[in-house]
């Protein structure tokens, strides 16, 4: 049976792992390949690097850490942040990434999704969608979410559910759904948003934004219909281990890959 995945996300700036709340107050957390290897050992099912470097000339640094990571952590690696063209995606895959996540650039030009999918296969194309809940207006009874880009700083006017369906039609092999309202708050995943999307698409959905503890991972899968759950700070700060999260998921009857304890 296919396992539900637990995915640590590493925010990377200038070749280092950083932590902070929505791109501010960044603190250096170490060498990406080193942390990646540690997470792989501790039972991570995949890894995501989110490149949040602002400088335009950071490509070489990013490709270098992707390559060094691929040499040490023998689990799948997704790289997101700033990929705007088919050629940039090719370079990231050649450096050793398995998938690339497209966000702002895909909103700006949706054909980027289909062009990348036809060149590299849809399994290599993750579309990341940041959604913000909208206030109910008039006689509206169903909740809705707007797509925001540039780390939540810019509204697009796009409906997140409609955009998710369109992204899959265009060739997305997976969707990474982040609730901007919950991200960094520790108030749990937005399971309503996840459910609306996972019930409408046939591709795997990765939940992101809001994890505080193991129970949130369980509800992202059980209530949100997520196939995989991503979190950053609770793992970096060692608030919860990957093993503890997986134990809670297993206890709730969810299929997970349990990694035998490895002597340090």
């Amino acid at each position, binding site marked *: *049976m*296919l*396992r*539900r*995945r637990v995915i640590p996300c590493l925010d990377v700036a200038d070749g280092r792992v950083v932590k902070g709340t929505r791109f501010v107050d960044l603190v250096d957390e170490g060498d990406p390949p080193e942390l990646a290897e540690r997470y*792989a050992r501790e039972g991570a*099912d995949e890894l995501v690097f989110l490149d949040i470097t602002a400088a335009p000339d950071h490509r070489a640094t990013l490709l270098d850490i992707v*390559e060094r990571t*691929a*040499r040490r952590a*023998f*689990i*799948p690696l997704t790289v997101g942040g700033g990929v705007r063209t088919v050629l940039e995606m*090719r370079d990231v*895959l*050649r*450096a*050793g*990434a*398995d998938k690339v996540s497209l966000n702002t650039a895909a909103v700006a030009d949706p054909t980027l999704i289909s062009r990348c999918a036809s060149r*590299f*296969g*849809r*399994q*290599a194309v993750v579309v990341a969608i940041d959604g913000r809940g909208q206030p109910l207006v008039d006689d509206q009874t169903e909740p809705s979410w707007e797509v925001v880009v540039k780390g939540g700083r810019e509204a697009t006017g796009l409906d997140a559910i409609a955009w998710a369906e369109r992204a899959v039609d265009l060739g997305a*092999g*997976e969707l990474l759904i982040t609730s901007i309202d919950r991200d960094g708050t520790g108030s749990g995943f937005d399971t309503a948003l996840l459910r609306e999307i996972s019930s409408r698409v*046939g*591709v*795997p959905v990765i939940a992101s934004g809001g994890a505080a503890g193991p129970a949130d991972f369980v509800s992202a899968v059980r209530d949100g219909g997520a*196939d*995989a759950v991503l979190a950053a700070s609770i793992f970096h700060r060692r608030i919860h281990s990957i093993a503890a999260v997986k134990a809670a998921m297993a206890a709730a009857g969810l299929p997970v*890959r349990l*990694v035998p304890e490895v002597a340090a």
Partner: protein
Amino acid sequence: MSPSGGGPRIGVVDYGAGNLVSIEQALTQVGARVVVIPDGDALRDLDAVVVPGVGAAAPAMARLARHGLIEPLQDWIAHDRPYLGICLGLQLLFDGSDEDGATTLGILPGRTVRLEDAPTLPHIGWNQVVRTREHPAFDGIADGADLYFVHSYAGAPSEDEAVLAMTTHGRPFVSAVSRGALLGVQFHPERSGTDGLRFLANFVELVAAGRGAARLARGVA
């Protein structure tokens, strides 16, 4: 095992299918000397061939043809030389693919078909690989171990003899085959953590043992 030195020479076929770093690095890690193979001529002097790759069959076959690799690979396998096909490298062994109607290498009878009744596609993630018989490539790996998959199609052999392992996503599909020195796996050993590395180490060991046997047969010390 040492990462360099006298390990068997294993050629990884490069036909422009993206990430080769993972498989090169994983094979090196378990003691192989890895050579990237750009064309059919480069198959000489190798102890084994690995064909990786993800994606659709037709563009892959077109690239293999362009690089002059189709006949050399067919000859290689016909002479029962060690071959490991991973994901697309397994699917290409069959007669053809339903994904785009491509004619493939025709080494194993059967076709590559879409996964049926799958709750999600692509099938992405860790899933159990259950053996239908024993094979030394799986030594030290628990039956039913979780290994990493990423695909929407899988080979459906028309004969059962080659089937080595099954996995279920919706319905059961063939996740490993073997025939003589030929191995094919639908999962990605280079992305399957310690069990994946164990599988590749077993493969490298089998290649090294076979190379020794071949040298003995030729009377070379």
